């Protein structure tokens, strides 16, 4: 009896295999910060975005079967590396996406390269990922420190903020953001008067703010993110930095941070993003679906969530066209060769260094009176076209570009 049953199952399996010769199996892992300071800019919201992308793609292409898993790297490169290794080796994951925290992302990028898999960065910012540390297995999707530096940095210098003091988070991301912004400021004719490096997850910035205040710099540049940025801005208001004539430049501020600050404190802040949920009807409709896919109703999607969605769509498109089970380098080469087109970022390209290029937007946070509904955060000040928004691959120092 058992033997017959076994044979029947075997036959059924073989039959299915024959019927779906075109079947493509893909496994995607969302590696993010699920429980700490970056959990709202990526985290569970990224998983919801990934589910949407998979649902949208498999609806039109039922022969593509996508498995989705997710993990929490806890902002520790060692834990992130361990999960990435296990996913690639044991769980047979083809592609890892998201990874906020540049320290973890740089480690995962290396692992994806060694094992010849695919890594799409949406959450991390360090431009090194497509600079000296680039590789043929990594695509950097949503934004990076060069783009933030040139967007916000240039805009501030142009409006007279030509002397800068940096508050920098003391790890890979902060250093990259400070370096890129300093370069942008100096190129535009400004000067950096000083900087102070604070540990990640600092509670009190008053010492650092006093140092910034006594530097007499016109702009205090915040080369940090998440809770650190929120604390810096909140306390800068308290210490009268802005009232004293200095300007705050939040180099990396997300919609979720503005939400946490409240418009009262955040108003007037200049920032650069590549995607804003309330920019048009397409984005608003997507946000509605994002909430339905499991993201908390009180939250608003960030550009990182949009990047996870768009990145997965483009990856699946490449896999569908190639068929079978190609290696990571081949898939990334295909992704670079194919122009990108998705509902959230529109048309774009991926350059030789692995940098996804699309427009960036310079926003200013609205005054409380201007905000019509919850999440109505920004006024659009300028659109920076894709070719200027991101670094020219020739200047990236990425070995892939010249070969």
């Amino acid at each position, binding site marked *: 009896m058992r033997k017959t049953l076994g044979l029947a199952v075997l036959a059924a399996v073989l039959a299915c295999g024959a019927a779906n010769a075109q079947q493509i199996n893909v496994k995607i892992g969302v590696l993010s910060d699920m429980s700490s300071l970056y959990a709202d800019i990526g985290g569970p919201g990224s998983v919801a975005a990934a589910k949407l992308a998979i649902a949208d793609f498999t609806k039109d292409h039922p022969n593509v079967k996508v498995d989705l898993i997710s993990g929490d790297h806890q902002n520790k490169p060692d834990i992130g590396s361990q999960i990435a290794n296990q996913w690639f080796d044991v769980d047979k994951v083809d592609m890892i996406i998201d990874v906020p925290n540049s320290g973890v992302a740089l480690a995962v990028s290396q692992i994806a390269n060694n094992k010849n898999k695919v890594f799409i960065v949406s959450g991390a910012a360090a431009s090194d990922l497509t600079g000296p540390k680039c590789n043929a297995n990594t695509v950097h999707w949503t934004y990076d420190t060069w783009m933030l530096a040139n967007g916000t940095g240039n805009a501030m210098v142009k409006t007279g903020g030509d002397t800068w003091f940096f508050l920098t988070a003391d790890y890979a991301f902060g250093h990259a953001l400070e370096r890129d912004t300093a370069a942008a400021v100096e190129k535009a004719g400004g000067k950096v008067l000083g900087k102070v490096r604070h540990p990640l*997850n600092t*509670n009190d910035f008053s010492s650092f703010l*006093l140092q910034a205040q006594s530097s007499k710099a016109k702009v205090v540049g915040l080369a940090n993110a*998440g809770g650190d940025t929120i604390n810096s801005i*909140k306390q800068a208001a308290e210490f009268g930095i802005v009232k004293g004539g200095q300007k705050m430049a939040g180099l990396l501020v*997300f919609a979720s941070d503005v*939400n*946490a600050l409240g418009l009262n404190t955040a108003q007037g802040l200049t920032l650069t993003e590549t995607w804003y949920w309330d920019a048009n009807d397409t984005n608003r409709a997507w946000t509605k679906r994002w909430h339905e896919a499991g993201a908390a109703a*009180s939250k608003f999607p960030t550009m990182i969530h949009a990047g996870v969605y768009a990145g997965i769509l483009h990856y699946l498109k490449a896999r569908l066209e190639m068929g079978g089970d190609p290696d990571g380098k081949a898939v990334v080469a295909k992704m670079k060769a194919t122009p990108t087109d998705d509902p959230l970022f529109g048309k774009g390209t991926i350059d030789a260094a692995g940098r996804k290029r699309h427009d960036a937007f310079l926003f200013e946070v609205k005054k409380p009176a201007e905000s019509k509904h919850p999440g109505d955060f920004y006024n659009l000040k300028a659109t920076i076209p894709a070719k200027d928004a991101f670094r020219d691959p020739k200047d990236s120092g990425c070995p892939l570009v010249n070969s």
Partner: protein
Amino acid sequence: MFEIFGIPSQALFGQLLIGLINGSFYALLSLGLAVIFGMLNIINFSHGAQYMMGAFAAYLILQYAGLGYWPALIIAPILVGITGIIIERAFLQWLYKLDHLYGLLLTFGLALILEGVARNYFGSAGLPYTVPESLQGGRNLGFMFLPNYRAWVIAASLTVCIGTWFVIERTRLGAYLRAATENPTLVRAFGINVPRMITLTYGFGVALAAFAGVMAAPIYNVSPQMGSELIIVVFAVVVIGGMGSILGAIVTGFGLGVVEGLTKVFFPEASNTVIFVIMAIVLLVRPAGLFGRRG
């Protein structure tokens, strides 16, 4: 104007004052911990979560009851203190006879649950809370700009700390409390309800944490992880001061705030490790802490 190690003296005075302000948060939190440990022998690992609850309670009171900072400063500690009393009655009272480790594990687990629940409902980015209108702005002291709110923090924290110390060390009620920790059976024989006293003490310790949370809400990011970021430092403060020593908790709280403040000027990268370096040195030289008694 003179300079000290290349830093203008004015900036240095400013940093000393800032250190003192941060120290007042350490002092408030470590005071609650010291009271709970001294009286209950429980290492209250959920203290950080209860501090977070205080800040969240302030936000919710504003959001749903429309009451601002000042009412919240009274109501939030009472509400959170009541949850503390429930926790003590439901869980902690069974653990006094067991090893410290059990209390530590229980409260650590509670902290994880409380944080997880807060994250689930409010997300991790944080909630807005502004400085009350009456304390906005600040004054120029000549060597630094002192926001009014910070001046209030230092005054309120000092008052609460000294008040608590006075009650426990100098009043009859405090004497009962201390006696009850030494020998509960004997104190009960005098007709004093020791279990109720212990329960109220835990409630008070928790309320202190919530009070610090409300004080922190206008200036720090109100997020579920705000407590866990701070609590490790506060534990170091308690260890340096001597476990269970109330005066030790207060003095080292303010002192370490100053040390940390100075580190932020001379070597900012080390500002979140300096306290642990001091802890290691103190444990080597005086294992019972600076103000602890060898037990």
